[in-house]
Structures are given as C-alpha cells and as structure tokens.
C-alpha cells in the first residue's frame, strides 16, 4: 500500500480521520461488550501509557537523551494530586487546578534533573537519570518521618476521584437506560488528554524547537555550531517530557484512588522506555503502537491457560509461570527482526535498511512536488 499517496489525498484522509474518531468513540463499549469491563480498564491504562510514552519520546526520541528515571515525573504528578486531594492533609482541591500544577511541578523536576546532567552523554546520562528516579522513589518511600509528608510505604488512600462541580467520574452514570461504570467516563477523559498530548507532540515535532532537538540528537557539536542554544533546548526537552509525565501521574492518582511508592519503581521506567524503543523512537504512531502493545500483551497473555487447555486438553505449564517468559521472548524477537522499532519513521527506516522498496520510495519522494 502506498501511504504517501493516501496521505496526499485529502478526501481519503478526512474519511480515515472520521472513521478513526468513530472507532475511538465507541471503542470502550465494543471492548466492554466483547471482553468485559476489565478490558475497558486496560484500555484506560493504554491511554495513560500512551501519554507517558509520548512524554518520554520527547526526551529519548526527539532529543536523543537516554532517560531511565522517567517514572520520577509520573510519581511527582501522582503524589502532588494525592497530597492536594485526599484526607491525608485534609485538602480537597479541584482536579482542573491540580493537574496543570502537577505538570508544572514535574516540569520543574525535569529542569532539576537536566541542569547537573547537561555535560553528560549517552550511558552516563542513563545511569544518572536512573539514580534520579530511584532518589525520588526513596524519598517518597521514606518521608513519613520525622514529618509525615508522603505517608511512606503505606501510601495515600482515599484520593478524590477526578471530577468537577460535585460530579465525579468514578460514579457510574446512566446512559440510554444502562448503568455505565466510571471506567468509561475515565476513558473519554484520558482519550481527550491523550489526543491533546499527541497534538502537542505533533506540533512540537515540526516546530523550530523540534528540529533543534533532532539536530542535537544527531550531532550535538554541529547543532551548537549552527547557533542552537543546546543548554536551553535540552532543558526544554526534559521539562516538556516531564510535564507530560506529571499530568499522567495526576490522572493515575485520581483514577486509582490510591498511590504508593511501589507503583513508581525502576521497572516501570524501563517498560515505558521499551514502549518508545519497541514502537519506533521519535515516531508518534510507532510510540503509540508500542504503548498499546506492551500494555495489552501481558494482559492478553493471561489467556494462555485456556489456550493450553484448548491445544493440549489440560494445563501443561502453569500459565502464571509462562506469562512473563513469553513477554521477554517477544521483546527479543521483535527487536531482532525490527531493530528500528515496529513502526519507525521514514527517515530512520531509511537509515537502517537499503531495501529496494525504500530506495524506490525515496526516488518517488524526490519528484513529489507536494512534499
């Protein structure tokens, strides 16, 4: 199929757009009817992880700064929400106020991380960001004494659900005479936020800043020589990426109603990084695909029990034993066969393959005036 042709045809683009919108709009009801509400909740988490992955994509994918402590910003957003809207301090500020505040706070933490690490490159940066993530988690885990701020490992419970004017999204609502649980309402909120994040990512990508990030990624010295203020541009990448994480964190806290430090461990950072890299670094559709796959796959693999029964007539190996094993294998296999990610951007694909198809594609693009 020739994507660029499709893209250039506006009519088809509009139709595809509307179709996609429709699918997204009814998705929770389809999934809920076909697979149960458990999968609607998974869908909610998929959207949450899309936001997180896109945030990390700014740092890793656009600016090429390897960040292994991204979950720290998620934690900052989540704890800010939890502290300002729970009985813990007796504060109950509204969500529309806390969410942007969380983004701001996380962004500031991003700058805090960025400042001392400006000179560091590649893997040195990776270990420092990893350390930063751990530091934040350890503080959250331990700040229950001498002054109780985060309630330590016990976590903060009974967090207010996201809502406005007395109505909360967690309550089930009635629609066409059907009782619809709160997870559906959250789906639309998360969808709106995710679309916003996608939109910002898209606009950033094509902006002056976005091109500056790519320039730094490809060659920092050259970028500096071209007059890019690498320090500010790098800090901006950290801050932007972090603020997406902060928003997601706030949404997570309101959605779950409970936060504790165990949600923000290193494995979580690594999984988000896997989403970005596996999907296709720097390419928004790829990153979204990565987030979807890595959130859905572990859940889908819960069905290997029934599958084994189907094929062998009984459960041969305990499915719980196999689930993560298959997940790990999938990571290896995908990367070996698609080293640039499942759905890399055209530029990257060109870098890592010399297939005739791609070459032909390039030729074509060369003469395509509308490009």
């Amino acid at each position: 199929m020739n994507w660029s042709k499709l893209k250039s045809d506006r009519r088809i683009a509009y139709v595809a757009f509307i179709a996609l919108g429709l699918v997204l709009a009814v998705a929770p009801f389809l999934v809920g009817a076909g697979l149960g509400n458990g999968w609607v909740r998974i869908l909610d988490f998929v959207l949450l992880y899309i936001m997180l992955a896109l945030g990390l994509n700014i740092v890793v994918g656009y600016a090429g700064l390897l960040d292994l402590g991204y979950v720290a910003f998620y934690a900052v957003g989540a704890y800010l929400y939890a502290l300002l809207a729970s009985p813990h301090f007796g504060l109950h500020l509204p969500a529309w106020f806390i969410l942007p505040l969380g983004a701001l706070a996380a962004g500031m933490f991003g700058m805090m991380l960025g400042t001392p690490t400006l000179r560091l490159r590649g893997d040195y940066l990776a270990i420092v960001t990893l350390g930063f993530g751990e530091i934040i988690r350890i503080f959250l885990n331990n700040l229950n004494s001498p002054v109780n701020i985060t309630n330590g490992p016990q976590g903060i419970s009974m967090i207010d659900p996201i809502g406005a004017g007395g109505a909360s999204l967690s309550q089930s609502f009635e629609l066409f005479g059907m009782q619809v649980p709160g997870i559906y309402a959250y789906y639309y909120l998360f969808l709106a936020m995710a679309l916003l994040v996608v939109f910002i990512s898209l606009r950033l990508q094509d902006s002056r800043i976005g091109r500056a990030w790519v320039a730094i990624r490809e060659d920092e010295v050259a970028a500096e020589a071209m007059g890019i203020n690498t320090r500010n541009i790098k800090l901006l990448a950290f801050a932007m990426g972090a603020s997406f994480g902060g928003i997601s964190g706030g949404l997570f806290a309101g959605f779950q109603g409970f936060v504790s430090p165990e949600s923000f461990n290193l494995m979580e950072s690594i999984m988000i990084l896997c989403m970005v890299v596996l999907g296709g670094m720097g390419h928004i559709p790829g990153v979204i695909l990565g987030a979807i796959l890595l959130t859905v796959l572990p859940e889908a693999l819960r069905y290997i029990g029934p599958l084994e029964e189907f094929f062998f007539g009984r459960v041969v190996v305990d499915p719980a034993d196999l689930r993560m094993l298959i997940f790990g294998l999938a990571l290896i296999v995908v990367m070996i066969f698609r080293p640039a990610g499942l759905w890399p951007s055209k530029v990257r694909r060109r870098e890592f393959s010399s297939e005739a198809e791609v070459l032909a594609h390039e030729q074509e693009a060369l003469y395509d005036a509308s490009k």
Partner: protein
Amino acid sequence: MKSRLLAVLLATMLFNLAACGKKDTAPGADGAVVVKIGSIQPLTGPQSHLGKDNENGTRMAIDDANAKGISIGGKKVRFELFSEDDQADPKTATIVAQKMVDEKVNGIIGHLNSGTTIPASKIYFDAGIVQISPSATNPKYTEQGFRTAFRVMPNDVQQGKALGDFAVTRLGAKRVAIIDDRTAYGQGLADQFGAAAKAAGAEIVTRQYTTDKSTDFMAILTAVKSENADVLFFGGMDAQGGPMMKQFKTLGLNAKFLMGDGGSTPEFIKLAAGSAEGAYSSLPGLPLDKMPGGKAFGDKFTAKYGQIQLYAPYCYDAVSVMIAAMQKADSIDPAKYLPVLASIVYDGVTAKISFDTKGDIKDGAITLYQVKNGKWEVLETVGGAEPAK
C-alpha cells in the same frame, strides 16, 4: 499495520469468548451450581513464593469444600477457583480486580500485599463483592468504610502492640533497636511495635532501615551493635530476616532477635543457616496443632503442596469462613451472605474467626514462638490486643 492490530484484538476477543463459553457449559455436566471464588496473589516477581502459597491454601480449601458436597439454597454447589496474578503491582491489581468483577465471582480471597489490596478493594466494594484478605495488614484497608472488606489477619496495630508488650514484659527489653524493610508491612509493624515498646517503658535506641530486596545488613547491624541494644526487632520478611540473623551472629551481637509473622517460617531457620537458635517471632492466631482440624490441615497441605510458606492457613480460613457464611445465609449472592459473614463466629484452623464492625478480625490472639533445636517452638499465646480505635 492497523489491520494487524485489529487482528490481534479480534484474536484475543475470540479466545476470551471461547474460554467463557467453556466455563459456562462445564457446570451443566453434574448439574451443580458453580460458585466462583477469585484468588488474586502475586504469582510472578520477588514475592511469588508467598503468592503461590496463598493460591495453594485457597485451592485446598475449595477442594475440601467440594469433597464435602455442599448444598446451598437447595441446590448442590461446586466451588471453582479463579486465580490471577497481580504481580504485587497496584495497577495490575485493579485490572485483575475488574476482571474478577466481570467474571461475576461470588467472593474474593486476596490480595497478598496492602499496596494491592487497598486500590482493588474499591472495585470490589463498587461491585458489591465480598473480599477477604488473608495477609494485608495496613489498618487503612478496613478504615475506608467499605463493608465488603474483611481480613483474617490482625492489622499492624493489633500485632505491633502484642509484640511491643511481649518485648518489654517478657524479654525485659530496656534498650530496643528497630529495623524495618521500608515496605508497607514492615514499616507499619515496626512503627506500631516501637510505639508499644515505648509505652511499656523501653527506650528506642536506634532505628535502622533496609529494603525488601537487600541481602547485606552488615552496615546497619554494626550501627545497632554500637548502641548496645538488648532487643532487636525487625519488621520484614523471612527472606531478609534469616540472612540478617546470620550476619547478626557473625558480628557477635548478643541482643535478642524478634520478628513479626513475616519471620515465623521454617524458611527463616533455613536461611539463617544454623544461626537461628533463640530468635523470637509471632504469628497471628493459635498454633495449628492447638486448633481443631489444624494439624490435619497442616499434614494434608504439606503432603500436597510441600511446606507451608506463611499465609496458606489464613487463606484456607478465609475461604472456609466465606463458604460457612454462604451456607448459613443459604445463598451464594454476596449481598445476601455479606451480613451473615459480618456477624459469623467460625472455628478456623488458625483462630476462632469473627469480625468487628470495620471487618478486622475481632480480638485476634497472637502466638509467640522461639527457635529451639532448629525448630519454631510455641512460647505462649497472648490474648489479643484490643482492636484499634
């Protein structure tokens, strides 16, 4: 690419439908009504050995109930186990909880950790499904005002108080050192222990910390040594407690070593590798062989699944008390048997079980043990602290 995605989605959908279909047709075979019991524990990750143990305890209770051939509401019923892995992760826990609600389970045994139990409890409450946690000890769990939330394990406040009193009155503690593993369980218990020991007149000379993944405790133990403590309390699990005890002896400390239920396992003795002698621990409830049916349970479990790790008996009790409530209410509908469960008095294998208004186990007795000749020996049973507040 999109079509591929759709295919994946469709495929999983089909599997699910196929799986559901099978489950629905199965009970027709022997004409019994199926009662679904959900068990959610971490089955992968560092705590999976405890999770599997819980699952086994739950499974055995269900098998035993089925062997008895119970009838509820005039119909023969068959109990079926639905087991899922929550990876000890709060996010996964809520997803799995939602699935259990979809599955329309009649009751939930779980989760293992407080961090997963609390966020999931809201989902069960919203769906009106009874949840009994075998091992979550965070007081918050039952303080949320969810009438569906129960536990058969005394909470941190209850157990910490019993341990603190024991340390001061029986072990004669004057200078107490406390270490905790910075988990919800370890920190909660250690805090309550400290408060109780202080109230009973002991001095807390040092508070040290480790993590639930550590193996090296030499540094913090050296710090403890410098304070000349006479009792060292560790709030944490056997996997850290055993090696800690060993290193404690290596460093030549001569304080008394005390742990909560997390240390009260044969594993502790094995991991301490010959250094466990003299250690103290507590376990909620009465010793297994003091309870009617307790010894039989222990023997049967060991024969079937190997050594009891820790909480399997509590899971067994959680299922049994749930089934007893169903029988008494003559209904498998959570809404119907919930009020019965709330007021039930039931002889379990770990204790006489009844719940207070919040859903905590009432007047939970706590038994203290000491390692003698390489085995945990019962020291005494203290009559249970007053439930919190």
